[in-house]
């Protein structure tokens, strides 16, 4: 197991080098430079030249890349061209918001998707099964941003049940030591703030979690259908074990394997979906920040932010691989 983890960690090195090249090239492939974007109508050839010299954009690309690698190796992603703040500081402030949102969306997806998929499989061919298939098809088909706009319009604007923007009531004076608002509220036993933070999380989490929910439900259904006809399940039933025990120990546990894979892969989807969801709900996370960086051609933010999210994605998948062994002891790594 340890060898497996070490090997996977070593494999990260070429992955990171490849990622850094991809991000570097992609950002520069965008038309225009930060000078053009920032100056707008006030652009003059002299100012553009001055900006390009300052940003080092007049240097050969390989020199620019080498400088980028040197600073990135020290976890220095530079300073945002738009906000003038260090990228690492902004990541520290914004990443907890995105993590909280992604976790809420994933909890929703797994918390609802697994039971829905399981029940659909248990009622295979029935109305519930067909209904859940139909709903999950819709869940996969509706674009995240469209669902976000719909949910917001209905539950925030029309019904007024939930807030439409932000992460917490803007007049709140509560301190946030970890920047994970739900965790902070629980640690300080501030239940009023907890409710407020959850209220702000519900709509973005539902919008963001809709696609993973549908996928988890469908995968669970397929896996349960597959597993429940296995010999060992029949044997367990023949031995007279209670149906709930068979479901829990023999069917669900084995069906969880493909679901854990999906969770890893869906993390990437959640992080990219957060760009749209956070924009619609003015949720102050990394998604909204990266969207603005694209418009501003903010190279340091794009390079640092995307590389950081890619790293998170790689690590989550590593964790998922490791979790295989815990979920299913039959799996051994070489």
């Amino acid at each position, binding site marked *: 197991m340890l060898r497996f983890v070490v090997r996977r960690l070593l494999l990260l090195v070429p992955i990171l080098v490849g990622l850094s090249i991809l991000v570097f090239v992609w950002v520069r492939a965008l038309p225009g430079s930060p000078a053009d974007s920032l100056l707008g109508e006030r652009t003059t050839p002299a100012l553009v030249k*001055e900006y390009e010299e300052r940003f080092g954009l007049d240097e050969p690309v390989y020199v620019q890349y080498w400088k980028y690698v040197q600073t990135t190796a020290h976890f220095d992603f530079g300073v945002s061209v738009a906000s003038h703040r260090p990228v690492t500081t902004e990541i520290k*402030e914004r990443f907890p*918001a995105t993590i909280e949102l992604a976790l809420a969306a994933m909890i929703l997806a797994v918390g609802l998707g697994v039971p829905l998929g399981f029940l659909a499989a248990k009622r295979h061919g029935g109305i519930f099964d067909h209904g859940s298939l139909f709903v999950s098809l819709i869940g996969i088909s509706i674009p995240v941003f469209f669902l976000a706009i719909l949910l917001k319009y209905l539950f925030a*604007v029309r019904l007024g049940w939930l807030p439409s923007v932000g992460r917490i009531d803007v007049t709140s004076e509560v301190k946030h030591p970890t920047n994970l608002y739900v965790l902070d509220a629980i640690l300080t036993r501030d239940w009023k703030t907890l409710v407020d933070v959850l*209220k702000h999380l*519900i709509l973005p989490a539902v919008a963001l979690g809709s696609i993973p929910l549908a996928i988890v439900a469908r995968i669970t259904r397929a896996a349960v259908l597959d597993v429940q006809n296995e010999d060992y399940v029949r044997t367990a039933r023949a031995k007279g074990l209670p149906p*709930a025990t068979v479901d829990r120990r023999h069917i669900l546990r084995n069906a969880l394997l493909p679901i854990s894979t999906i969770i890893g892969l869906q993390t990437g989807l959640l992080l990219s979906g957060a760009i749209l969801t956070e924009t619609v709900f003015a949720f102050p996370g990394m998604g909204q920040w990266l969207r603005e960086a694209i418009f501003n051609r903010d190279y340091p933010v794009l390079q640092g932010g995307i590389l950081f999210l890619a790293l998170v994605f790689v690590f989550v998948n590593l964790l998922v691989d490791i979790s295989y062994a815990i979920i299913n002891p039959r799996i051994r790594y070489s």
Partner: protein
Amino acid sequence: MRGRLRFGALLAVVCMVSLGAVSAVSGKPTQSSNTFIFAGASDPTYLDPALVSDGESFRITKQIFEGLVELKPGTTTVTPALARSWKVARDGKTWTFRLRTGVKFHDGTPFNARAVCANFGRWFNFTGPFQDASATYYYRQIFGGFKRNESTGLGKPLFRGCSAKGKSVAIVRLTRRSGPFIPSLVLSAFSMQSPTAMAKYGANQGELRGGTFRPTGSYAFSHPTGTGPFKFNSWTVGQRVVLDRNGSYWGTKAKVSRLIVRPISNNTARLQALQTGEVNGYDLVAPQDMPTIRGNNRLQLINRRAFNVAYVTINQSKPPMNRKIVRQAVAHGLDRASVVRSFYAGRAVVAHQFMPPSVPGYNPSVKKYGFDPERSKRLLRQAGLTLPVKIEFYWPTNVSRPYMPSPNLNFAAFKASLERSGFEVTAVSQPWRPDYVKNVNQGTGGHLNIIGWTGDYGDADNFVGTFFQSANAQFGLTRTGEHKAIALLLDKAEAEVNPTKRIALYKKINALIAEFVPAVPYAHTTPAVAVERRVRGYVASPVGSESYRGVSVGGQ
């Protein structure tokens, strides 16, 4: 069976947690009516006004800081602020400011002539990274250079020195006569800041990192200290800036005890936050959202006076636009009235010159070019051209500006009217950022290009001076011939310090520009701020950042 029940119960619990949270507390914020919550489009950059140039930073600094002069609310008229009065000496270069007495900065430091000179001296003595355009854009624009210029792009500084005469008289000496000097002092960039706080919290510490300036002291992030009606409380990046009423303010104190400005970048999200009551108001209302606001009896629109100009550039470096008669044909061939009537929802007037009527120097009797296709064709024939005259017309995509909400519609209408007037138009569209603006400003766009300008301060120099004083590639100008006469007059107007004489000069310049037709202005628009009906005392400034000291919520 028990297993199914358990899963059913689990499902029910998840749903109940969600719905329970929903029903426990409604979506309405628990807002005190003594707090004014306003939504901007983004966070401020930082809160040292001398080092920022964006509207969202100025939105905050305008509340914390004050300058020697300010604009009369809702107008572009310069009025006293921290200076009670000012006068210029006969040489036109020495300005004497008589200051208010008894004014203190938020940290208790007295505001006096020494503080004024400390601020002017600070800007003038900026070195290294502080001389960068990303740090001191407006200082560089207005004052031209520093005590010791460290870049070839900088010129001779306008500022020579400052001396205090007692506590309440500050004398500022300039190197040359400058008409825009006083009007430009309304910019928040030239606000007075506490010398004590700046020294204590490292306001003069900064670095250029990766080509971008950033302050390294804490002053600009957590200790901005001015004399304004609001004091800094806190700033949570991405979420809010909180300001509290300055109880020791020298003038009429702010009506609300707390001001919160929150960044919401998406237009629709800002509108919806207003609809749900999560904010009391927001800026940069999109034209398409205005009917929704008008249709909601809880909300209202407050207009800013027009302070912009939309125009079609004519590039004289591209024949046959080098001939005035052809440019006049273009002016007669653009159906401006129809465009303004059809695509601005009643929120614009037809422009006949390159500055809005609110700016001193506007000349109501300049030559006007009505839409007249036949006259246009006649002029083209007089120029010896064969009809239709082939031209390239550039227009931008992916953009909506206050002066140009729908460039595609403007372009389509102009193209149709030009084609009725003897032109054959080749349409070229480019994304606003980065291609379009760059090509237009560098003169590498079309014969004609749609663009516009929003002013920074209420002075003619900020409009016609910006466009036509130099050899501007946008119009293919070379400061020769007829343009030279206009440019020399603009030089003279810039150096004129007598307001009456300046106004007369700019009126003459506007008349000459209308004859010269370097471009065709077509619209001045009135942007709007949206607020709840219960918000009182909100006066929108034409230049875009107003003080909230007179604002109350819920009839306080």
